[in-house]
Each structure stands twice: as C-alpha cells, then as structure tokens.
C-alpha cells in the first residue's frame, strides 16, 4: 500500500510514502521521530495537496544533504522544512510536522536500496490504520493550505493548487 518513487538525480535512492489514518499514538510517534528511533519524516497530511508535493521536498532535501547545505540538522527534518513556504524552521515543524493532537500521519522514508525491514518496523510502531495514498486528498485542509502558502485566487485558477504550492516551495530561497 505504500508508494515508492525513485529520485532520478540520485540513482539508487527512493522516496517511500505510507499514509495512516485513525492514529492513536501521535505523541509517542513524534517523540520517537525526534529521538531517532524512527528514521523517517512524519508529516501532517492536512497540509498536503498531493504526494508530488512531498517528493519535491524530499528531492531538494537530498540535494542539499549531498552538497552539505541543509538548513536543518537531518535529512528528515529538512524534508519537513522544504514543505514550508517560509524560511522559519520552527514554524515549519509546527505546521507540517505531527502534533500530539493529530490522528493521521504520512511517513516519508528516503532510502538506498531495500528498506522493507525499516518500513515494517515503522509500520509496527504506528497504532493506526494504513490506507492507500489515493486517500491523501481526503485528509487535506485546502482552506488552510491556501492560507499558509498564500495562494491567490488568480494563481490557483491559472495553474491549480498543487502547482502553486510546489512552485512556492521550489522558489522560496530567492523570493
């Protein structure tokens, strides 16, 4: 049920996504992620339009890691930071990371090679129901997304919400 996407610029590395609903232990998961027991990024699906948004963030994170220019301390926190339209790191964690009150979570794992064991380990730690990635749009809070990314009506009309969001993510360093 998870979906994997190769990173063309980084042969051998893939981004794997797992979506969970009805999560009963968000606080524990958040602690595990921060403590390093879970080596994946845990993202709040509410702020996500489409998996592509996450893949773009992951690609940029791996790129910055490769050249040693990450803004945060780890690849996983960098993925979360890249989702944000601003350069404020703590705000990014607040908005895109999971909080103790969340009941759904998207797990993002950037791997080299076969990570099926890690995926299984993580899955075991999540007290929730794994659902297919197709259900992601149902968990999106489009109003909040528009507000946070400051998507103007004309911008959305011209290219759609996903493209507006992705472009802002990709260009935030120079705006």
């Amino acid at each position: 049920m998870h979906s994997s996407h190769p990173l063309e610029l980084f042969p051998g590395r893939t981004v794997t996504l797992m979506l969970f609903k009805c999560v009963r232990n968000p606080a524990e998961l958040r602690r595990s992620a921060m403590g390093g027991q879970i080596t994946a990024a845990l993202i709040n699906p509410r702020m996500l339009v489409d998996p592509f948004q996450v893949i773009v963030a992951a690609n940029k994170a791996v790129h910055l890691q490769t050249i040693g220019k990450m803004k945060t301390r780890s690849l996983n926190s960098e993925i979360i930071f890249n989702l944000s339209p601003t350069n404020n790191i703590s705000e990014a964690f607040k908005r895109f990371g999971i909080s103790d009150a969340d009941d759904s979570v998207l797990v993002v794992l950037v791997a080299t090679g076969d990570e099926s064991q890690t995926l299984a380990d993580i899955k075991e730690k999540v007290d929730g129901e794994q659902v297919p990635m197709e259900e992601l749009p149902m968990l999106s809070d489009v109003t909040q997304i528009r507000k946070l990314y400051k998507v103007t009506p004309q911008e959305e009309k011209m290219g759609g919400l996903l493209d507006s969001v992705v472009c802002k993510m990709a260009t935030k360093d120079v705006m």
Partner: protein
Amino acid sequence: MELEKSMVVSEFLSKGSVLKQGAEARVYRDVFLGRSTIIKERFPKKYRHPLLDEKLTHRRTVQEVRSIQRCRRAGIPTPVVYFVDYTSHCIFLEDIVDSVTVRDHILATRQRPHPSPTLEPLEPLAARVGRVLARMHDEDVVHGDLTTSNMLLRRSGEGEAELSLVLIDFGLSYISALPEDKGVDLYVLEKAFLSTHPNTEPLFQKLLESYAASSKKSSAVIKKLDEVRLRGRKRSMVG
C-alpha cells in the same frame, strides 16, 4: 562537495535529450519526479573570468526564478518551477506538453486558405497577448526576450476550444518598474513580431490597444515605446 553535485546533475542530463543550445544555456527534456520536465542549464562560460562568470550566472538564474514566481502569483501563466540547483545553475521546470508556439500558430493560420484572407481570425489572440503582457508589466516583470516563440498555446481542459496562453523563457527577465524598460520590452516584441510575421502591423496594433486598455500604467509605457521607435535602434539590455 560542489563538484560532486554538479557531476550528479550532469550525469542525469547526459541521459536526457538536448532540445536546444543557445549562447547562454542548454535546454534538456527528461522525466523528473514522474513529470515531463525541461531542464535549463546555464553552463560555465570559459571565456569569462571564473569569478565573474559564477556571479553573473547565479544572478541570471535567480532573476529567472524570481520573475517566474512573481508572474505566477499574479495569475500570469508560466511553467512551474520544480527544483533549482544553484551549484550547477540548473532550473527544472514544467514541460508544457501538448502546445504550440504562438509563432507556429500564426504561421499555420495564415497558410490555411481562409474564407477571408484578413488577419481577423488572429485578432482575439493578439488581444489576449496584449492583456497578458499588460498584467506582467503591471507586476513590474520585464520579460527581456519577448517573441512569438516564447509564447505557448496549450489546450486548457476537456473540449475547450480556447487555448490558454503560457509565457516561457524568462532567462533575460528582471524586475523593473521603469516605463522605459517595459517600453523596450514591447519594442523587442514588435521587432520580432513584424520580422517573423510580415505585414501584420494591424495585428500588432490590436495587441498594443489591448495592452493599453488592460494595463493601469500603460500610457507611460506606450509613450516610451514611441520614443524608442523614434530612436531607431534596440537598446541592448544584455550585459
């Protein structure tokens, strides 16, 4: 470490197909993150002093990205930027599939035996271009290389007869509020338009009328356009 990254990207690029190569950049097409993507690579210019080359190339990359995003937030259609690699100066952009350049569209339309051999069928398009450019200039974005090859028409949605206009190639663009710069922008288009599409003065006139009607700051710009025309030569904005 920077060298390492450049090699990763250039390896990726060597697998894609080169669409075209200009003096400034090479353009590739490839699949990136599951989408058809155009990659614009501003390669190093050996004839320049390396420090100067790096600064110039970086600045041009940044200007291009900024101009695109500025246009988008105002609702002006441009390709989406997916990723920018500032170490190798590569911009990964949306590939606008299923589209024709305005240039090819005009050429094709004029070739067809029409009921009336006038330019009338192309007037709505000229008006649309005028409107889009007006919006762009109102955002203080100067394109820098306006030609009918840098405007695409793509099918928008199912069964819609309307083709939507997309502006591309912001490689020479920059932010400026000066009517002079915008006037020159239009002058560049006029020269390119009339040389590519001979005997279309009335069509371009329609474009300008539409521009003037749509832009809040148009009168100053048109005034400057007239002045530049009188001067009789292009003012080179290429550094």
